[in-house]
């Protein structure tokens, strides 16, 4: 059985043939690896349920043509009461007009292209160090496409009060195009910050492919709260990765939410590298229509005495599909690890599908691990209780769907993020706004 050789790999390698600059070595390294990579297909275990057919056609392999960002696009990404530092990219290009770069002391937030010499050195020191390339060939492509990115660095023992808002907005253009996004966050020892990565689009039908890689380094005793919002219009294609390393006694709280799309894949790969590190992951996926969302998480306990907790929930509607794969890896040396993973899915239609697989690889003998996945429909008992209080069945269904997700929103540290997301959810669950009247 021979498969037709994909032209995608060599074709993609030619895109963003950039000027020679300080990032050239990274690009070359990435390109070399990408060229010898294989495009995942349905026989690749990690991509079993997610087809790259849309991408493989190759017609997204072009740079964005229009770079005029003078239009006021802020209504697409403004979050009420978030008025701290903000970096905005439009169609993959940094937009100074929409950004706010007044920074608190001890914080560096800049684009790669504007980084000064010292910052460049810091970027080169860390870039690619956290990435789990072996399971993410698209990260090589991201390297090879690298022309810009966001660099966030919080100095030792600095605490940033304001949420840092990074926006990646796409618009529809005349021709299909590709966008490369990269973010590197380094929290030095004892630093504390909160970061929102916000993928969004204009409302019109999108025709972009985004390849995003986020790298997070949380050094000893540092603490990062991270939100990743994927709220693009459904035709936008996205393959993204979050790669994090946690050092001694550090903490990462990361929440991801994704509405569905033609192709939406997110890999979250966390390595606990220092004793006492703790990672909380939670996430929500909400495909409907014929959309797809694919979440893959990997929690790697590499040293003793680390803890991790993952809670993922999805509501899968209509004829849509969700994929969830949660790997917990415990290294032979990682004794006294504690790792929990829960994945619950609500199917609201007979034709909806979810493929969920918790996966444990435990090579140490003194650990506590628990994992579980459920797939169910809206509980008739709960519906009955609400209806017995006079609530119409349709509204009861909306309330319960909302509640299922809202339980995770309630756990988020930042009220502003909760308040931003609730109306978006309410609107999603209730086709008739009347049915959402009690939600927000």
């Amino acid at each position, binding site marked *: 059985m021979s498969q037709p050789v994909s032209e995608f790999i060599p074709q993609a390698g030619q895109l963003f043939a950039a000027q020679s600059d300080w990032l050239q070595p990274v690009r070359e390294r990435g390109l070399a690896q990408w060229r010898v990579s294989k495009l995942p297909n349905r026989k690749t275990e990690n991509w079993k349920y997610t087809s790259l057919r849309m991408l493989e056609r190759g017609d997204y392999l072009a740079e964005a043509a229009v770079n005029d960002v003078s239009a006021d696009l802020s209504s697409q990404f403004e979050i009420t009461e978030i008025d701290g530092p903000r970096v905005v990219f439009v169609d993959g290009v940094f937009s100074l007009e929409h950004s706010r770069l007044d920074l608190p002391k001890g914080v560096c937030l800049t684009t790669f292209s504007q980084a000064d010499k010292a910052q460049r050195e810091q970027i080169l020191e860390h870039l690619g160090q956290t990435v789990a390339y072996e399971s993410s060939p698209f990260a090589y492509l991201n390297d090879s496409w690298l022309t810009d990115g966001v660099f966030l660095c919080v100095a030792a023992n600095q605490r940033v009060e304001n949420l840092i808002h990074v926006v990646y907005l796409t618009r529809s253009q005349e021709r299909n195009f590709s966008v490369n996004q990269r973010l590197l966050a380094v929290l030095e020892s004892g630093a504390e910050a909160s970061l929102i990565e916000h993928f969004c689009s204009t409302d019109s039908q999108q025709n972009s492919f985004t390849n995003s890689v986020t790298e997070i380094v949380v050094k000893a005793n540092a603490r990062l709260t991270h939100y990743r919002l994927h709220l693009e219009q459904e035709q936008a294609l996205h393959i993204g990765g979050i790669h994090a390393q946690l050092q001694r006694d550090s903490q990462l709280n990361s929440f991801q939410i994704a509405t569905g799309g033609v192709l939406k894949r997110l890999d979250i790969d966390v390595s606990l590298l220092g004793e006492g590190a703790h990672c909380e992951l939670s996430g929500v996926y909400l495909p409907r229509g014929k959309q797809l969302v694919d979440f893959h998480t990997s929690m790697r306990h590499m040293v003793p005495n680390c803890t991790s907790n993952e809670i993922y929930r999805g509501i899968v509607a209509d004829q849509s599909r969700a994929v969830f794969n949660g790997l917990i890896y415990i290294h032979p040396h990682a004794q006294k690890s504690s790792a929990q993973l829960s994945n619950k899915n609500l199917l609201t239609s007979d034709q909806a599908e979810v493929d969920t697989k918790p996966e444990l690889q435990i090579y140490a003998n003194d650990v506590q691990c628990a994992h579980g996945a459920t797939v169910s429909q809206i509980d*008739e*008992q*709960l519906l*009955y*209780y*609400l*209806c*017995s*209080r*006079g*609530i*119409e*069945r349709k*509204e009861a269904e909306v*309330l*319960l769907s*909302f*509640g*299922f*997700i*809202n*339980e995770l929103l*309630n756990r988020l540290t930042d009220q502003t993020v909760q308040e931003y997301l609730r109306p978006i959810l309410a609107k999603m669950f209730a086709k008739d706004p009347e049915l959402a*009247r*009690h*939600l927000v």
Partner: protein
Amino acid sequence: MLSINDLHATINGKEILKGLTLEVKPGEVHAIMGPNGAGKSTLGHVLAGREGYDVVSGTVEMLGKNLLELETEERAHLGLFLSFQYPIEIPGVSNMEFLKASVDSIRQGRGEEAMDSVSFMKKAREVSKAVNLDPNFLKRGVNEGFSGGEKKRNELLQMILLEPKLAILDETDSGLDIDALQVIADGVNQMRSAERSFVMITHYQRLLDYVEPDFVHVLADGRIVKSGDKSLALELEARGYHWLKSGPGADGQAD
């Protein structure tokens, strides 16, 4: 108010109610007692229209309407309220949202205007205090992490806000300490009126010391086997149910 005639009902094909007849007039308080497995809770759920509880024959009228034709929520709009024996937890939906949704739906069902949010919240907080439930519980998920007694008080809170015409209290007294029982009884007594009726399902005479019933019925093996006034409850307390079951008209097994 409520007129049940020769009601037969099954759960999963198993007959639980076997010819139950009961007449409740406006303003009356009826107590239904009986051994485990007699069908007491089934009666409550059949009246509320729970799925899987199938009426095989017989009629149920409430306020002149055929109750069995109505959806669960329509029964609530008509004025029926069932206080659950095991109130259900709904994390993620706040108690306040839930209460507002209920009250709005019921008012809408009755063709009344919706209450504005501010006065509703004020009222909900007042009632919450009256039933000795910390108003902070209004912000929490419905019954989420509530103790048994808190759940029962939350049911009472709902009853007071929804102002039903007929309230069925399914073992509202079970698992309560004396203080909590007093709170529930006070709530019910304050709600008593010439236009409102109660059916209290209970195992114990204790509740009836606090809420005095007009009638006491014994439900055994799917039908009412004896009716009387409140003195019947005292007799049951003293003698148990067994003497009734072997009597005429009772052919069921004791459990």
